[in-house]
């Protein structure tokens, strides 16, 4: 038997998050991920953890992700030189998803940017943290200070019960906060930055707290009957069903925001005015259409079609490749996404996924596989 990439031997040089001791106490299976020892699953296992998150609430440790702040006169305009989002019009307390692009319009990393009033707060991927920091230092110019929060933990509380649970520990205001907003409040007695966001497709929150308060906050949330600890394995299957990109797999330096179906995150003003790395490439693809697109791929049988699986047309010609694929516990079958030539990107197109040399019937489907349940705010009275 060959074990997969999530079960490599652990390495002595890996970093640990502030919740490392708690994970081990809870029976986590720890694996190396992006330079950290992280819990891939707890005792319940990936399948049950995934379903529990969609049914009630799951608590994830995402402290490996980079938490940064930018301060200085004209900071939004300065960051716009590196990303295609509209940050000048990002309201106070609001969060925007965007990407660092390169000169070819490829994606160096994807990130969340929040207007926290006196500064911008950035959340970046763990594996890209060091290169992102260097990229920011080189690209922002003088007058913008970059702070790296090495002493903060990041938790994600996700699922339909997340708002009720967090309301018991943070006050009722968190329940009214709309998707992609941030507020500063106390969570279980700790000063926290709380976002209405996440990467599961469910309603939920991401909670940044000082590292020395992380275990206390996590323990308080886990004491709630609705909440179970969830590992990286279920985080991956949840985000795949939600149609969300994983950096280094579904997006990387060779894929543009247009090809990746992320044009919604490119500001309307920026599409016209450009002014970010690779703007000409992105504008050209907006005008002419990209030659390939990221799509959902639904294999017809039971066999999962995993990353790097070749996608062929009915005649057997290669037309694309799977970039994320596996078993979707909520779908109850295999789910995947990948890039296909534009002519084959229309939902309903019949294709094949070549699994272990055998072409298996599959079709292009609209993403997400499981509908998003984000809280968009109270309906207007």
């Amino acid at each position, binding site marked *: *038997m060959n074990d997969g990439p999530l079960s490599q031997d652990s390495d002595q040089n890996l970093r640990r998050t502030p919740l490392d001791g708690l994970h081990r106490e809870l029976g986590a299976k720890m694996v190396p991920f992006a330079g950290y020892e992280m819990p891939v699953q707890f005792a319940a296992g990936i399948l049950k953890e995934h379903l529990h998150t969609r049914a009630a609430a799951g608590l994830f440790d995402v402290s490996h992700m980079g938490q940064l702040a930018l301060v200085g006169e004209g900071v939004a305009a300065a960051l716009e030189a590196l990303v295609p989002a509209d940050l000048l019009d990002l309201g106070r307390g609001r969060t925007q998803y965007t990407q660092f692009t390169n000169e070819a319009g490829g994606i160096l990393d994807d990130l969340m940017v929040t207007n926290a009033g006196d500064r911008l707060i950035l959340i970046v991927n763990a594996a890209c943290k060091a290169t992102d920091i260097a990229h920011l230092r080189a690209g922002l110019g003088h007058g913008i200070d970059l702070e790296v929060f090495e002493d903060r933990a990041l938790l994600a509380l996700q699922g339909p019960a997340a708002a009720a649970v967090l309301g018991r520990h943070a006050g009722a205001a968190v329940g009214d906060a709309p998707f992609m907003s941030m507020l500063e409040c106390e969570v279980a007695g700790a000063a926290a930055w709380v976002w209405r966001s996440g990467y599961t497709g469910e309603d939920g929150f991401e909670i940044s707290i000082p590292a020395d308060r992380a275990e206390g906050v996590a323990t308080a949330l886990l004491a709630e009957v609705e909440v179970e600890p969830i590992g990286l394995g279920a985080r991956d299957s949840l985000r795949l069903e939600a149609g969300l990109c994983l950096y280094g797999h579904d997006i990387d330096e060779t894929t543009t925001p247009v090809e990746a179906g992320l044009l919604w995150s490119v500001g309307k003003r920026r599409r016209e005015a450009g002014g970010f790395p690779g703007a000409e490439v992105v504008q050209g693809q907006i005008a002419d259409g990209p030659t390939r697109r990221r799509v959902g791929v639904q294999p017809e049988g039971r066999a*999962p079609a995993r990353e790097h699986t070749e996608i062929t047309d009915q005649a057997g010609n290669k037309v694309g490749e799977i970039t994320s694929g596996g*078993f979707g516990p909520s779908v109850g079958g295999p789910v995947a996404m990948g890039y296909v030539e534009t002519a084959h990107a229309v939902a309903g197109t019949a294709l094949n996924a070549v699994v272990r040399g055998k072409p298996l019937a599959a079709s292009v489907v609209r993403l997400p596989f499981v509908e998003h349940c984000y809280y968009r705010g109270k309906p207007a009275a």
Partner: protein
Amino acid sequence: MADTRYTKDHEWIVVDGDIATVGITDFAQGQLGDVVFVELPAAGAAFAKGEQAAVVESVKAAAEIYAPLSGEITETNPVLDGEPGLVNADPESGAWFFKLRIADASELDGMMDEAAYKAFLEAEG
């Protein structure tokens, strides 16, 4: 009395006459996690010892199952197609993968018995 042998790839083999029934051990299913799909060989297919004979897919990854002995497949477990989770629930009995007609009984020589496999697991630790 049937005789159970084990491989370093965490397969178990029950030998009854010239027929070997093959599955994966409880340790193996624990390492794999939730099994969601098993691809089994066709009856009549012949394998040399060590050739890939089946694939087991968990929520995490795909794992290859090698023929622990040379021989011809006589039967595969019909239950696993509709109920792959049986590999997690009952790995060392109900969730057998396939039966094969042993081509060369001498390949059994030196294979681990239960005590030796337990010692192997502890040494792997």
